């Protein structure tokens, strides 16, 4: 089983709190989105069922809960941890995979729109560091292969 990279002590407090529910935009506007349940399940070690749920992708990473939280922790940490595991198991939305593939290949999520640049009289775009970044990411992979983390 993959490790949850979470501070369980803080999460336990969180499961008894719930204060930031009322300021979270997704809790307020997306029916069914409720990190309180997710946190409670994580604390009880029953988070598996959330890995395939679209709910964990509905956290907007707006950091509102983080800022309001008396522990400076926030619902979002729980959601991010579950998304990371879901992704490792291939349970991520297809769009995330497409985006990641593009990032891994080019170091970017898109290339400058050249005809439009011309139309607006913009200069040649700066050179991308994509190739150099690839070397760094490859070195990271190598290190992991050798058992570093």
């Amino acid at each position: 089983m993959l490790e949850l990279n979470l501070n369980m002590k803080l999460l336990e407090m969180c499961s008894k709190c719930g204060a930031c529910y009322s300021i979270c935009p997704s809790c307020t506007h997306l029916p069914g989105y409720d990190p309180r349940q997710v946190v409670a399940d994580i604390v009880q070690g029953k988070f598996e069922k959330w890995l395939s749920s679209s709910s964990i992708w509905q956290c907007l990473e707006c950091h509102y809960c983080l800022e309001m939280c008396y522990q400076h922790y926030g619902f979002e940490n729980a959601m991010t941890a579950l998304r990371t595991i879901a992704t490792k198991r291939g349970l991520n939305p297809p769009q995330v995979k497409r985006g990641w593939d593009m990032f891994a290949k080019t170091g970017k999520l898109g290339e400058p729109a050249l005809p439009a640049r011309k139309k607006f009289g913009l200069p040649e775009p700066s050179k991308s560091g994509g190739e150099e970044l690839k070397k760094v990411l490859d070195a990271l992979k190598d290190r992991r292969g050798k058992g570093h983390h």
Partner: protein
Amino acid sequence: MKEFAVFWGCTIQTRFPFLEKSTRIVLDEFNLPYKDIDGFTCCPEKSLVNNVDHASFVVTAARNVALVDELDYDLVSPCTGCVSNLATVKGELCSNPKEKAEVNELLKGVGREFKGTAKLQHLVPFFHDTVGVFAIKQKIKKDFAGMRIALHYGCHMIRPSHALRNDDPIAPVKFDNLIAALGAVSVQFPTKMMCCGQGLDRVDQHDLALQLARVKLKELKALEVDALVLCCPSCFLQFDNNQYLMEKEGEKLGVPVIYFTELLGLALGHTPEELGITAHRVDCAPFLKKWAECSGQAAASTMDDELNAQGAL
């Protein structure tokens, strides 16, 4: 003023080159020492890269920051996400020497070093703090007196505050101050600080992205504001493109969306065509028409005594 590199980010250069245009126009207007430098990549986008692999997120951002560290420049971006991501990683590495050393070991392989010395700023707090409200007011050719603007800060302009430390993360004021400096009223409304919701469009939940956009746009329609002003390409995508998609489905909300650099550019005397406002999906003509109707006086002619007294420079 220290020289700074502009970090354009993927979204502006890929989808909204006109936002780069208006940003360059206002930077040039104030003779700011900005640079285009080679070698940047995606910041990287947190919701995507960090969900897949935190270490890749960290080294990618660290490498981008290393480029400006090396040149002894600061960094300014017209994208909230880029600054927030870069600053988040800078904060993480500066508070964790062990992780910083590990990252630098990887960067050494390509001859780079993350020091974390460069100041990373979003364009809005940069204009507020470094250019200054007073200098802006002095340059205005035609202000927005009589106009009612709804502001959308964009979560990542101000959060996470431990990394950005540029304004109050819950009740920020700097963007509002800039709007006031341009002579407009910044309308206060219940969903002002609510996230745009564009993130849902990146995880195959388009209908829910629209649902969140609708909440704010409906409120603004009812309040009859003249425009929604923001300074983030992701929020722009959400409120301009997605509003247009709703319009095509017969749901017309009619809220013009204006980028901060465009609003400033207009006040400085540039035309909507030059600034690329005519390239928006949602029609901005009602906003421009209203502005033409407002008398608009030259703000430079009146010294703002109160501002002077507070030492706002």
